[in-house]
């Protein structure tokens, strides 16, 4: 039994560097030791990413050509205490999306991510875009705010940014609209 004890202790002591390595990401086997299969999986993933890139562009060119493309983006520039619940978007008085945000998405927006909320097609000319957002502010207070803007659709793609911001009116979240060409 003592032999077992000694062997177990030895195993633990030998494994001490592993604790150190575990402290952050443990390094996998060196590249040279990777099998041909690992290399093949890497190569496949690269090819699948390239294919998806090309298909992503093809889909956009086919479904939303630049001549009619309009995209509405949502971004945030608010304090830590505002949580965005949903955004409803209407184009020419017709609802095109009503989006509910997950905790992960709220976090991504707060960290500087910008969500492409809607991608659609509009004819050249003037269009009306209306957006409402709901959310919770300080002291669990519910907020609902809206904005309406006229968008002149020309020949090229049109991008509209709806920024939920509390900079202008101190603790009162509002939409700040910016139109990008």
């Amino acid at each position, binding site marked *: 039994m003592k032999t077992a004890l000694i062997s177990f*202790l030895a195993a633990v002591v030998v494994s001490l560097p592993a604790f150190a390595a575990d402290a952050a990401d443990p390094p996998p086997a060196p590249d040279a030791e990777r099998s041909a299969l690992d290399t093949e999986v890497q190569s496949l993933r690269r090819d699948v990413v*390239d294919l998806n890139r090309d298909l992503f562009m093809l889909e956009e060119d086919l479904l939303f050509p630049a001549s009619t493309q309009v995209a509405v983006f949502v971004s945030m520039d608010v304090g830590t205490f505002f949580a965005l619940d949903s955004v409803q978007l209407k184009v020419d008085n017709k609802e095109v999306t009503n989006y509910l945000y997950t905790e992960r998405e709220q976090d991504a927006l707060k*960290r500087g991510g910008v969500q492409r909320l809607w991608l659609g097609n509009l004819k050249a000319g003037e269009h009306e875009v209306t957006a409402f957002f709901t959310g919770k502010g300080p002291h669990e207070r519910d907020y609902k705010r809206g904005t309406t803007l006229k968008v002149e659709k020309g020949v090229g793609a049109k991008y509209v940014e709806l920024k939920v911001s509390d900079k202008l009116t101190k603790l009162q979240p509002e939409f700040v609209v910016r139109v990008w060409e």
Partner: protein
Amino acid sequence: MLRTLLFFLAALAPAAYAAPVVEQDAVPGLPAVQVQDLHYGDVLFHFYQQDYFDSLVRLAAYREQGKLLAHERDAELLRGGLYLSLGQHREAREIFEKLLADTSTPKPVRDQAWFYLGKVLYAAGLYEESDKALRQSAGTLSEDVEAERHLLIAQGLLNRQRYDQAIIELSNWAGPRYWLLYGQFNLGVALVRAGEAQRGLAMLDSVGQIETQWPELMALRDKANLAIGYVHLQAGEPAAARVALERVRLNGPLSSKALLGAGWADAAAKQYEAALLPWQELQGRNLLDAAVQESYLAVPYAYAELGAMSQAVEYYEKAIAAYDAERARIGESIDSIRTGHLLDAAMKAGDDGRSGWFAQLATLPDSPESRYLYHLLAGNEFQEGLKNYRALDEMSKNLATWSESLGAFDDMVQTRKQAFDEKLPAADARLATVDVAAINGRRDALQAEFETAIASRDIYALATEAEREQLDMLDAVDSELALHVGDASYDDAREKARLARGALLWKLDAAWKVRSWQASRALRDLNASVYDARTRETASSRAREGAPEKNAALGRRVQRMSPRVAELAVRVKGAKSRQAERLADIAVRELEDQRKRLDEYSVEARYALATIYDRATANPAPAKPQDAPP
């Protein structure tokens, strides 16, 4: 007995001493970014949700479309980081090296590129090169990244067993709290390995006594306490070992090792009754755990040491039965794995968005194919292999979805062509009825007429239809009166005609300013309308000529994609099948090793049992079970 057990369980719960409290906010994250291109923000939106594949695809597409110009270098850095996150080290390395080779890359981006290159090289096990890259990245990194850089350098040294250098690197280092604790842990390990046990244990002890609610740091605290416990055990200091081992959480992943160690600490102090408590607690746990396997031998060993031979015999027999049963179950699982059922179970675990699929594997229902899955994941080779298998499965689903979409795209292109061909004759007919050139000519003539009138202040030019009629009438009257020159009876009529013409001229003159402005505005509106008409005519004509070509080009792109998708789908299917075979081989090999170890333990138990029987035969005085602890 119950009281002692409760005391023992309480002692193993997290200790609450006056230790530093680690806030959740101290855990590092990426700094916020000021987005200048909406599409770069969209990439980040997916990146921050750890949706790395989608983020990478969007980044690659937007980059190709020239939509990331304001973030060109940031985007490259992110692209390299995304490849790194997906385990694509070669691509990541290429991107970082390219950024560094470009002399115009600004210093903050260079620093980050050096840092990530260092990470790639570290992950590839190239510690020397990683060290060089990481040391070049200092200067402009954020506090958290700087801390990670420092720790990676130290860990590279530890991996190369350069403990003295690691100690220099980590001593007197003051990073953010979260990283500092990892640094202290590694410093403690480095000191112990370098032979400075006292300093090392003191350092590990500072980590072993932290108070935290953060799971990663609780796991680090357990590791520190386990390391302290076993170092003390090895040094023959069981009391100190037990203090540290009792701080390991009873529900944590290291609790079995801690329980076994606590038992050995008691046994080393000749406290066999006390040793039985943690060892017996282990016996209800998974027998694949090395600590649990050993506890089956440790319990009868303690009874034998206490002189309770009948209990020792009973527990050795129990150990043999448990080992045999487990070996049979392993055999059953090996058969199931060989028939290809292992991965069915592995793929059942979904990602709930919080704990991830990895953690969910621990909760799979007990069945021959899934019983040992979580245990197998402890091995890096199996874990990496399963990650690859899941990645291949996702690729396969992705390709199947695109394959369907391409069919729809093809239909769409055909439908558009058909609709265009059908609408063309009617559109042509409508266009033929409109002569934009003639309209344009008439507009030019009007413009010229207006400009002449303005230049000569021709008030008649802006007269209304009624006024023109009045002027014509007055001209007719004047002509008639001219036939009667000298006839005094027409004098009154002449005076009236003169007054009427004067009044009309006065009216035309008074209206001149307003009318010239109105005419100018009407011409401007006309110009705009004519311009719109010409633009529409040009656009219609261009669309008429360009649309079929554009549609055909899209059709060709769709056609070119289909074989690419099909070819990749075949390659992915083949790789997935080979990966499944490889995982089954690793699993069977690992389980065979386990079975062999259980065989060895079983033989050891049988030998111990035979020895007890031999002693009993040589010395017939019976053991006193009633003397044994309950």
